[in-house]
């Protein structure tokens, strides 16, 4: 692996565990063996490094979401919602350090003044919510999901529930495994077409 990538990976690890503000560049040099000058040569600044992580996160995760969303499915929209929930929870687990970064305060603070950061985050979240919205729209078309609910708003609500589950698990608030079945059922009850 190139030095540049090693630095990026180590920084992702540190930022996700300790938070942006509490990560000292000294620790990064210790972990990677790269001189501070090298780090700044590649990434200009601590903030620049953070933006690179976001950009890397975007490029790493989004294609998988895109692939998932575009996969042909024989299932009904309602079943696709269920599957999307599992997919999201699975992704959050397998890429835990990246999701940990998304669950920190700092990226959103930075997004208020930094357009690049903003664009990365918007793209990431659009992609996340798209899988749910896509499933709901499909469900409304095939009749499995109530036609009178607002697809866009409902997708955001389902997403915020699922994403909170990720937060629950990361912070060990509760045994999330025990909630999974009920989460799926709640979402189904919320969306299903009862007139059929």
């Amino acid at each position: 692996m190139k030095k540049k990538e090693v630095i990026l990976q180590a920084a992702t690890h540190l930022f996700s565990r300790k938070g942006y503000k509490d990560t000292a560049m000294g620790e990064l040099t210790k972990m990677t063996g790269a001189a501070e000058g090298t780090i700044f040569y590649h990434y200009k600044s601590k903030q620049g490094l953070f933006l690179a992580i976001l950009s890397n996160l975007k490029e790493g995760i989004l294609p998988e979401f895109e692939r998932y969303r575009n996969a042909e499915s024989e299932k009904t929209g309602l079943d696709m919602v269920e599957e999307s929930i599992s997919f999201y929870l699975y992704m959050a687990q397998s890429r835990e350090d990246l999701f940990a970064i998304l669950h920190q305060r700092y990226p959103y603070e930075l997004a208020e003044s930094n357009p690049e950061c903003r664009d990365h985050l918007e793209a990431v979240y659009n992609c996340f919510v798209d899988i749910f919205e896509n499933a709901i729209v499909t469900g409304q078309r095939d009749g499995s999901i109530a036609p009178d609910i607002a697809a866009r708003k409902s997708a955001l609500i389902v997403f915020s529930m699922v994403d909170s589950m990720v937060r629950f698990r990361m912070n060990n608030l509760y045994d999330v495994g025990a909630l999974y079945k009920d989460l799926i059922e709640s979402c189904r009850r919320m969306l299903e077409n009862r007139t059929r």
Partner: protein
Amino acid sequence: MSVITVFNALHCNEEQIVPRLVDTTGYRLVGDGEIAALAGKMSGIPAERVSRAFAAKTSLFNPFTHEKERSVAYMRQAVAEMLVEGNLVVVGFCCHLVPASISHVLRICLVADMAYRVRQAQSLPVPEKDPLKTIHKSDEDKAAWVLQMTGKADPWDPALYDIVIPTDKIRAEESMHLIVRNLHAEVVAPTEASLAALADFRLQARVQVALTLEGHEVTVAAKDGAVTLTIEKNVLMLSRLEQELKEIVQKVEGVRSVATEVGKNFHQADIYRKLDFQAPARVLLVDDEREFVQTLSERLLLRDMGSAVAYDGESALEMLREDEPDVMILDLKMPGIDGMEVLRRVKATQPEIEVIILTGHGNETDRETCMQLGAFAYLQKPVDIDVLSETMKQANEKIMQRRQQGS
């Protein structure tokens, strides 16, 4: 076809002037009650709850119910539909729902000095027990409403009206004649442009209702069926929001096109936003020199510091009971309760508020007394805006540090 709107400070001879005006013109009188009732009918919100939108204080639950925004949106639509009727005298809060672009509306404001208003209140058939309090409460509601509708901190600002009548100096009969004379002036006659402005207003009102119903708070502008929505919020998933807004608005009758834009101060990499962290968010300015405070308030706004204004010690203390500013800028010399006394009381009851004294008449003894009483700083007028905002930032730093230690 023309319309007269009358917005008055409480007890400024309105009960004499308005009926005469209605008699002489033969126009129909429309009050807030009728508009709230119509809005209630259109929205399904009970009329008396619609009227609560006029109160300065908003329900704590409003962020979830959006009832105030819905009430205002429906009242705006009610006013818009009524204006089509023409030949109206509109009296009350709803005057400020009518946009300035509709030029066949004659905008009247009735004001008088405080002493006169108190005398008027006392000479009522049933005199008021505490007229000063009622007047202050009414002024506060009106100021909050006008600020919300027009962005002007002074509800009696001449820029908002065609005529501001000091009713303590001009008698009711004369005031009425003055209004009627102006009503017949050519500028108040409906023109093609002013009727087009009315049509735009009706469309804007309809769009606003549609958006408010979906829980969105967006600034709406309409011109010949082209609608522009300004998003005044920092939203990360912006394109999603824009799409949703467009879908809602496209369905509104009369809309030909929809464009969205983002408010100037939102999520752009400008310095104003960054200042946010350093500047106190809530500032109360207390000074009896109206012009001075208003200029100051505007200049602070340019630096992204929102401020409320009180013109005397009494209303300042009144405001403090309801709301807690971070920083207070206080003049020493004021009629009634003076600045020194305000400072003493604030520091006794709400010591966490940082008070900056700003005075034109101070001396060394005053300075010492103020600092002993716990003032954060003592500045002399005329003050350099840079010095003042620097001082405010320092005060804010102190507050932030205290909060961090406390938490």
